[in-house]
């Protein structure tokens, strides 16, 4: 069972197309980076996530034109509590990258990326429904899986696995 150790040094990873583009645009937006198990993860400041996505989509060298997935991880009780995760794929070059934005538990709001990729529409509704993260600028932010009058956000860690409602 051999696992290569994770690389978290930006200097070693800056040749990766997504990271190179972001560093060239605004070095301060990249909070942290990790290359582990052959996958690149970039932590981005939550205020600029939509611009970051837009820049990655329009990058001429490696356009990340396909939004595979938008999801969320709840790290309760540690703060920042929520981590919204974006999985992107570049169809011409077949590169993948994972972007993460950390949000506080008290008011988890982040800008929607549906203006960048309309594909994120359903995914963001699901994250809102199951975690309670609001996406500002989303055209139709309503519950998608749970009934409309449901209270609570089921995938949060303080929501029970089993119970009676």
């Amino acid at each position, binding site marked *: 069972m051999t696992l290569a150790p994770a690389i978290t040094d930006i200097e070693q990873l800056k040749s990766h197309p997504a990271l190179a583009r972001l560093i060239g645009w605004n070095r301060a937006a990249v909070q942290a980076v990790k290359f582990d198990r052959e996958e690149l993860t970039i932590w981005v400041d939550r205020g600029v996530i939509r611009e970051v996505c837009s820049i990655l989509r329009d990058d001429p060298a490696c356009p990340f034109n396909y939004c595979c997935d938008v*999801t969320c991880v709840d790290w309760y009780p540690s703060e920042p509590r929520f981590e919204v995760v974006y999985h992107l794929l570049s169809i011409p070059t077949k590169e993948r990258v994972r972007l993460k934005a950390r949000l506080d538990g008290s008011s988890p709001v982040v800008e929607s990326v549906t203006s960048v990729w309309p594909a994120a529409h359903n995914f963001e509704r699901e994250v809102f429904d199951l975690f309670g993260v609001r996406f500002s600028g989303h055209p139709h932010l309503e519950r998608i899986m749970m009934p409309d009058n449901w209270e609570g956000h089921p995938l949060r860690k303080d929501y029970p696995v089993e119970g009676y409602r």
Partner: protein
Amino acid sequence: MVLNMGPQHPSTHGVLRLVLEIDGETIVRIMPDIGYLHTGIEKTCEAKFYQQVVPMTDRIDYLCPLTNNLTYCLAVEKLLGLEIPPKAQWIRVLLNELTRINSHLVWLGTHAMDLGAMTVFLYCFREREDILRLFEMVSGQRMMTSYFRIGGLALDPPIGFFERVKKFADRFPGNVDEYEGLLTGNPIFKMRTKGVALLSKEDAIALGATGPTLRGSGVDIDLRRDAPYSGYENFKFEVPVSTEGDVFARYICRVQELRESIGIVQQALAGMPEGPTKADAPKVVLPDREKMKTQMEALIYHFKIITEGFAVPAGEVYQAVESPRGEMGYYVVSDGTAKPYRVHMRGPSFANLQVLAKMCEGRLIADVVAAIGSIDIVLGDVDR
């Protein structure tokens, strides 16, 4: 007028509710309402050991259960850094392709039946019955097989299994000719599918379409060829792509995929390597039953794995696999314990459903039925 194509409807292929705003026969707006099959699988996975999640993955996309097993097992094996022996990988590919054929047969049968060609349904299900018997032979279950486990396969395939598969694989191309003979040149089928539910290349990529829905609009991407997993780099196959973007184009893509899949099955049978079917990792993979009954260490490992699970090093992995519907992705986050911290399933149908509005608005109600059939959604995938 607002019409409800309710969750209980023979043509929506599951519990999908569509709210149609219509003006005569033309659709002005279409709004899918999902969640009728939501069972909280992602939440339940956080309460189970890693190996206990495998049977839950069968039920996500219930028409291709082995593909879901494969995606999850590959993700956890990546987290663990396990090496899978070649024989296990080849059998995974063989069964994966049989699952693809299985799923496409259901699609073809139900899609053609929705459009009125009811004979095709029984022809497809005749072949599907043979495949389900093959799955029962190898795993004991017809549909929810859970045959792929973390570290390899659950059991060795029984004696006589490969001969049965060979007999099926030799017969199957003739069956595909039968289906094509009934549908491809059929003027009624062509009138109902050509030019219907058009999806341009840019819209397909922007809206997140995947699989044959994307390839039918001219985008040449297939994860088996472009990001090979589980030994797919050893197999030669074509990826059918069509540029028209209508229902007929997607039909042609999937029927071609049937032919390519049976070709891969033949290659797998011809080149099957010898060796073990489980990885060499006693703390992760259950020992053989005979060893467990006679050796003390094997018994201890068996007990520990079943009762306490195995700790997976902390990290996260997004494993994407080409399922019959497109890119199925599992995002597994581990915090170092024996239970996954978060398992997220990126179902291809959840993304494919978003193209429905683009395809159907401005068209007739009858075309909605053709469109839903052509994007081939499975509600287990959409709702989890």
